[in-house]
């Protein structure tokens, strides 16, 4: 006999305890992201529409903002600095990436390493180094021909330095994703090398170039460390936010500037999403990766260009080191550790360094766990599409939110008197939460990519063997994904060590951080100690990277034995 379900009623499958576990997990992550991201951002939005007493005033604050030239002029300044820095940075990074991926120039491994160095320093460190190089007493100030380093010139050079690796990573990827067959075709058609370069290379990498342009522009415009140190009287949006909030306690206006700052970031986020979806289809499984051939002239030319860029990076970092260890620049250049006597300066002393270590450690541990589990839930839950997509969307949102803006949102949300979570204000916890949220997206995407590479049937097999999903997660998914988990942890640690923008609003005297201390010491005129702190942060980030790699290499060998045939 046929038991026909009523036409139109969809059959529903009963849920196993695993399904419940996963769905509950999704809801927990959703709640977490709502509290640490969505609510702070909406608090910021409503703050911009309120007056000081908290009454709704519509767009009045915006009207006042645009009517105040001293504020709205910053938009033009930010645009100018952003555009010039982006043009320079992306051009240099393209040359560098081209040399690394498309030529056989010598020393490519070293250049690759050099190019990544700025990732390990807080953005204010290159600015401090620039003061020593081109400031009033700088050893190379003659090169500026009378122009002052304090202002747009300094901001641009500093910005190019620290955004360089971000552009580099994107462009290396874009240039590696090229199909050798296109080159062969172009050659066979008798196109000149120059024409091939334009029609194949540039056109093939166009999405990557576009993506790099937007990413760098956003980073420059929303960065706070460089203009704070070397901007002088040249106001930009990022420093305005800081001045309004920290200097004048004008939170409403701070929120308005923050929202203005949100625009380029959101735009760049949208462009990046489009680019990502386009780039995916460019390479098919049949593509043959391009293998560069030796070409003396090209190798030498690009080798030379990369050498210059590499030298610039080394000299900025070297100057910072020199400033940190020289007794009294420029009068007494003998070696001294007196600038590391942080306890006798403003800014929080050695305690702030210890705080930074703790903060970065906690962020790495909790952030990695939360982000990896979140990505796992998004990828492996059956059904419950709405929940999964909501998590995925929220996870990508931080990419569109500059750190300063996020930090502001945190003040407004967590410091609101009625908020039951008010107690974490001013503690280490809020710094960790904010930093995890700030760097969530890239880590999430790394985890998702790794999880997508796993056989989707692992979970299915476990279900058919009636093994709870929890066990398969711990026994299979985590061990197999260990390399990606390590990458996420290092990424979070290094960024937590170097970040200034979000946390500058959230630290308390008890939880001052190293990067913030460097900022404050610089503000107080203790430039050498600020350089020393920056150098310390660099060394820590670099050391942790090395140690972590060595340690996990052992762990990986033990757990990834299966990888070796």
């Amino acid at each position: 006999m046929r038991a026909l379900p009523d036409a139109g009623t969809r059959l529903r499958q009963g849920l196993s305890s695993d399904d419940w576990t996963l769905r509950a997990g999704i809801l927990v992550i959703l709640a977490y992201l709502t509290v640490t991201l969505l609510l702070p951002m909406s608090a910021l939005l409503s703050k911009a529409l309120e007056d000081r007493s908290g009454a709704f005033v519509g767009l009045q604050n915006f009207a006042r903002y645009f009517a105040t030239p001293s504020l709205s002029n910053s938009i033009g300044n930010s645009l100018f600095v952003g555009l010039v820095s982006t043009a320079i940075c992306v051009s240099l990074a393209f040359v560098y990436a081209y040399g690394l991926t498309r030529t056989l120039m010598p020393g490519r491994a070293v250049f690759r390493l050099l190019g990544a160095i700025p990732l390990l320093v807080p953005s204010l460190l290159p600015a401090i180094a620039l003061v020593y190089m081109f400031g009033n007493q700088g050893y190379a100030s003659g090169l500026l021909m009378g122009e002052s380093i304090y202002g747009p010139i300094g901001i641009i050079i500093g910005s190019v330095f620290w955004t360089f690796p971000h552009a580099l990573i994107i462009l290396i990827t874009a240039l590696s994703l090229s199909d050798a067959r296109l080159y062969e075709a172009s050659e066979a058609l008798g196109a000149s090398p120059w024409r091939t370069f334009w029609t194949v290379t540039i056109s093939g990498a166009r999405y990557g170039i576009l993506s790099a342009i937007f990413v760098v522009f956003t980073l420059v415009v929303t960065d706070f460390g460089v203009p704070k140190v070397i901007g002088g009287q040249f106001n930009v949006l990022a420093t305005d936010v800081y001045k309004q909030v920290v200097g004048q306690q004008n939170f409403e206006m701070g929120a308005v500037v923050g929202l203005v700052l949100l625009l380029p970031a959101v735009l760049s986020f949208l462009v990046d999403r489009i680019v990502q979806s386009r780039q995916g289809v460019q390479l098919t499984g049949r593509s043959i990766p391009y293998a560069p051939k030796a070409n003396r002239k090209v190798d030498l030319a690009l080798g030379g260009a990369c050498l210059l860029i590499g030298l610039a990076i080394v000299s900025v970092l070297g100057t910072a080191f020199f400033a940190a260890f020289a007794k009294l620049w420029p009068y007494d250049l003998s070696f001294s550790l007196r600038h590391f006597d942080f306890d006798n300066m403003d800014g929080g002393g050695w305690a702030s360094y210890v705080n930074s270590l703790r903060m970065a450690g906690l962020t790495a541990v909790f952030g990695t766990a939360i982000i990896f589990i979140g990505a796992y839930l998004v990828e492996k839950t059956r059904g419950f599409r709405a929940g999964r997509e909501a998590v995925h969307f929220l996870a990508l949102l931080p990419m569109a939110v500059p750190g300063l803006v996020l930090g502001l949102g945190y003040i407004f949300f967590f410091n609101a008197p009625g908020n039951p979570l008010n107690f974490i204000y001013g503690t280490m916890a809020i710094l960790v939460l904010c930093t995890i949220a700030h760097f969530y997206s890239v880590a999430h995407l790394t985890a998702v990519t790794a999880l997508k590479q796993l056989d989707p049937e692992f979970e299915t097999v476990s279900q058919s063997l009636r093994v709870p999903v929890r066990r398969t997660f711990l026994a299979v998914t985590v061990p197999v994904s260990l390399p990606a988990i390590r990458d996420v942890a290092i990424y979070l640690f290094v960024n937590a060590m170097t970040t200034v923008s979000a946390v500058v609003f959230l630290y308390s005297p008890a939880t001052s951080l190293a990067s913030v201390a460097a900022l404050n010491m610089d503000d107080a005129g203790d430039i050498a100690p600020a350089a020393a702190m920056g150098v310390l942060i660099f060394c820590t980030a670099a050391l942790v990277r090395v140690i972590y790699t060595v340690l996990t290499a052992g762990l990986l060998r033990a757990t990834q034995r299966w990888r070796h045939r």
Partner: protein
Amino acid sequence: MHALKTSARPVSQPYLQLTNITKRYGSFTALQSVDLTIHEGEFICFLGPSGCGKTTLLRVISGLDIQSEGTVIQAGRDISGLPVSHRDFGIVFQSYALFPNLTVEANVGYGLTSRRMKRREIAARVGELLTLVGLTDQRRKYPPQLSGGQQQRVALARALALSPGLLLLDEPLSALDARVRLRLRTEIRDLQQRLGLTTIMVTHDQEEALAMADRIVVMNAGRIDQVGTPLEVYSRPATPFVADFVGKMNFKRGRLGPDRRVTVDGVELVYAPDPDLRAQPGEEVVLCLRPEDIVVRGISETAPNRLAVRVLSMEFIGNHFHLRLGILGSELVLEGDLSINAVRDLSIEVGRGLTIALPPDRLRIFAQGTGR
């Protein structure tokens, strides 16, 4: 649909019963009102071209995908809406989905460790399973260190660990090279018979299905075209699709005449009585004939469908010859397969004449368009 006339193993109580299974993905219908009955201990193959819905049907049976409509009854229990973990089956995927970071032993014992079993019992059961699939000496290796065939066996052992009532195999052999595939075919079939385990295997390889199955379920665009033993499916295909998909076939358009006659390109042929034929004299039909059914030896003067032909081309395939035969006095060309012996004995060569006969009971006739 073709009625089930014979079954390899007539068993009273059906083990698995699918009724009116429909599966839609949005506006696309992947399975359309599928009915199927499977008996205990049977080896069933789902056979059909890629994309016809074989995997989808397997996933409905396992609960990995839920059907849009219809019921699944396994061993008398309605499991239509049950989650995967509440069903009783073992499964092997095309990718094997072995856990790469666990040893062979740990993979096979994976489902056992979460039950309340003593360590000793688990080890004993794992040993038993590894013996069953002949991998005792590989127990401490990791899956990436094994050959494809060995991985396959580990996946099989893992699927059998909980002694499931139903074994599901989704294209288990298609990732292997030809030689290993042949060996594993026999191994899987032997194992299944030894355990008396009801098994469903998905494949797009007709040879595999013919060699292994008790009954073959031939699928076409989300529907079942025919269910039958390999011999039935091969010699009495229920639709032109089945005729085309299983084995090689001459397809010729013709017109039905009176008295069980059919005219193809001006050649009149006699066919054997066929109760399933749904065409009236005068209608257009499709005539099917397997190349190997063309007779060339011992043809009597009075044999029906006796034809004089010329050999148009010959191709040596390895264990037989493939010929194109032009019927004299007509446009009709038939493909024929002849043994090496026959070619030698009759000194067949390209361009020479030859007499052939088409046995009336080997001619299959289908009404145009609608199958039968």
